[in-house]
């Protein structure tokens, strides 16, 4: 299929260009816009970004492959990025990962046959105090995971409900 930005996307890109003295810095945000639009930044999308910005394709490819959040291939509808790094490791991150592997019937890095879930193991997501945790498709974090919480998450995702943002109070606070 041919990939094209919508008028709104192009407008957004134009707006971004004004933030920087040259076009190249728009590479990262434009890849984000593309990924939000198409769900991935496969080579054809990388080319679209390059052409839209008037930058070399190789440059965009180099950038897209350097940053892990850009999906260089199509993923499941929901990408479950399970943190297993240090604090999450200590607090059972690998147990959660294994639980998900079993529950979804796939190995880490794979996508379920129905294309619903991709399961990844990722590096520290900066939620160390709320371990173990995972991030859903580059969006909200789901913290302090237990098997029960994972079950609930999977059920609601299957029902098309994305997880809400979990506000975690500062332990010293009473009012916030």
């Amino acid at each position, binding site marked *: 299929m041919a990939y094209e930005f919508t008028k709104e996307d192009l407008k957004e890109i134009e707006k971004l260009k004004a933030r920087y003295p040259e076009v190249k810095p728009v590479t990262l945000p434009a890849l984000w816009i593309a990924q939000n639009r198409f769900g991935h930044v496969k080579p054809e999308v990388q080319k679209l970004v390059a052409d839209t910005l008037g930058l070399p394709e*190789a440059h965009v*490819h180099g950038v897209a*492959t350097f940053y*892990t959040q850009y999906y260089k291939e199509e993923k499941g509808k929901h990408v479950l990025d399970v943190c297993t790094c240090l604090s999450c490791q200590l607090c059972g991150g690998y147990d959660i990962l294994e639980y998900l592997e079993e529950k979804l019937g796939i190995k880490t890095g794979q996508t379920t046959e129905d294309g619903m879930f991709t399961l990844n193991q990722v590096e520290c997501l900066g939620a160390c105090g709320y371990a173990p945790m995972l991030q859903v498709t580059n969006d909200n974090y789901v913290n302090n995971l237990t098997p029960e919480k994972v079950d609930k998450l999977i059920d609601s995702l299957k029902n098309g409900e994305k997880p809400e943002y979990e506000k975690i109070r500062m332990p010293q606070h009473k009012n916030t």
Partner: protein
Amino acid sequence: MPQVIIDGQAYEFEGQHKLLQFIQDLGKEVPFFCYHPSMSIPANCRQCMVKVGMYVKSRETGEYEIDDNGNKVIRWFPKLQTSCNVDVADDMVVHTQETDEEVRRAQKDNLEFILINHPLDCPICDQAGECPLQIQTYKYGPEGSRFEVKKVHKPKRVQLGPRVVLDAERCINCTRCTRFTEEISKTHQLTITSRGDKNYPITAPGREFDDPYSLNTVDICPVGALTSADFRFKARVWEMNQTPSIDITNGKGCNIDLWTRDNLVLRITPRFNEEVNDHWMPDEGREAYRIFNENRASKPKQKLDGEQILSSWNNAIATFNEQIEAHDKKDILFVGSPHASVEENYVLSKFANLVGLNPPVFTTHIEKGKGDGFLITDDLAPNTNGSRMLGFNELDEKALKNKVKNAKLVVLLSDHLVDRGVLNADDLDGKYLINFATNNSETTKLADLVIPITTAAEHAASYVNVDRRIQRTLPAKETRYTNRRLDLEMSEGRLDRYGTNFDNWVTEDNKVDCLPLWRFITEAANNSGLDLALTSGREIMEEISGNLASFEGVSYEIMDEQGGIQLSPDTKTAKTK
């Protein structure tokens, strides 16, 4: 004058210098991979580590601080420095691997890292023998390997483009190739993909590395990651002779090396000349090796009953002289060539003069719009300015065509005028065409007498480029009548002397049966009783520079010393002294 102390020796300097380049310019050595003098400095290979410090001066007195032993106190930088990006400064003290164990250790450590994921496949690698990684590992690397876990695997035998093949496992991520396409050729076709030890250079997906300068990345790749699709597996580098020469495929005259084995040119690589091509050359020029090897005019040919048959040199000389004598002078046309050297054109013109003919005419070979402002020129011939400076009558294609039509005997110096559409068979119908030629072509097919002459790979000769710089070639391969061990112009072995000291491969068929133009003309002249004694390109150039003001001061010696000579740009035509 400011001075820097390197390994205990003081060196004065002026201006700005990067330490690594400064050390190299002194003829000393520090190992490195990513640094390239013509590109930006990423300092990413970390190989050129040295220890750097500064003499300490007292803040109050401005005097050097002296320690108890009477030596100047040195404040060392807290870490070893990559010498490539350190600016040489006054009172700087440097220890290289020559004098410092810590530096030796650091360089060895770094090579160990570079080698752990390298395939160590030198025996099947084209780069072996001219590989900075191989050479520097022998000199500075660890003796064994402590790496007993799995290596990283990456794509191999990737056809990056029509001319370049990638083995990503050999790559050490120096980024010379990507920097080349960003900074030099500016096609931006290469990038590093992925991250960490999965890194390797690649094009954008689905894109070809068809940069017109792509093969330069093969030259500057410090390992065997990028190899030439054409040259791959043809020869080991130590089997070849390396002869300095000039690119004759366009008007720039890039300085090159011809790599020969068994009297075949196997590859062409650029040779550094700051004034002309720096370290680079276009891919097209490298194809010229085929001109030197393939489809050569070998042994004279004569038309008999409308058909070309092989002849002998004696017959060719006799026929040449007969035809000159048989025609009215006004019916004879000598055509010089921007594709031939200054010496060849001069010899042709000298002979014309000797027999009382007008000087040769010529037409340029220019394709408007082909040039790129870098090393590819509109001019497809290497010596257009040389032909002009000899005072030849420069004709446009139409005018030349008319001249040919009005002549009865046409003597044409290696220019494939029919192939490039200046002349056609009808124009030559009924004329006698004598063609001095290096290669067979549609033009030679129409000739009544084909006299095979040497190419730039077989003779010493000079060419004046589009910028009026005169540069010369050296004979790289033997003909039937030359001998590498007797011809002092010919190189013996590789310039670096690591290889065998002469080309001892002896396939006779690879030697072309041709003569330098000067030799044929001398023989022909002597045969018809004319006084002519030309003995070499070198002597011819001496004669030219003695006779023609536009070539004043030109000699092979100076060209060799200075990498060519810039001729006065306002010399439009030749003046006879």
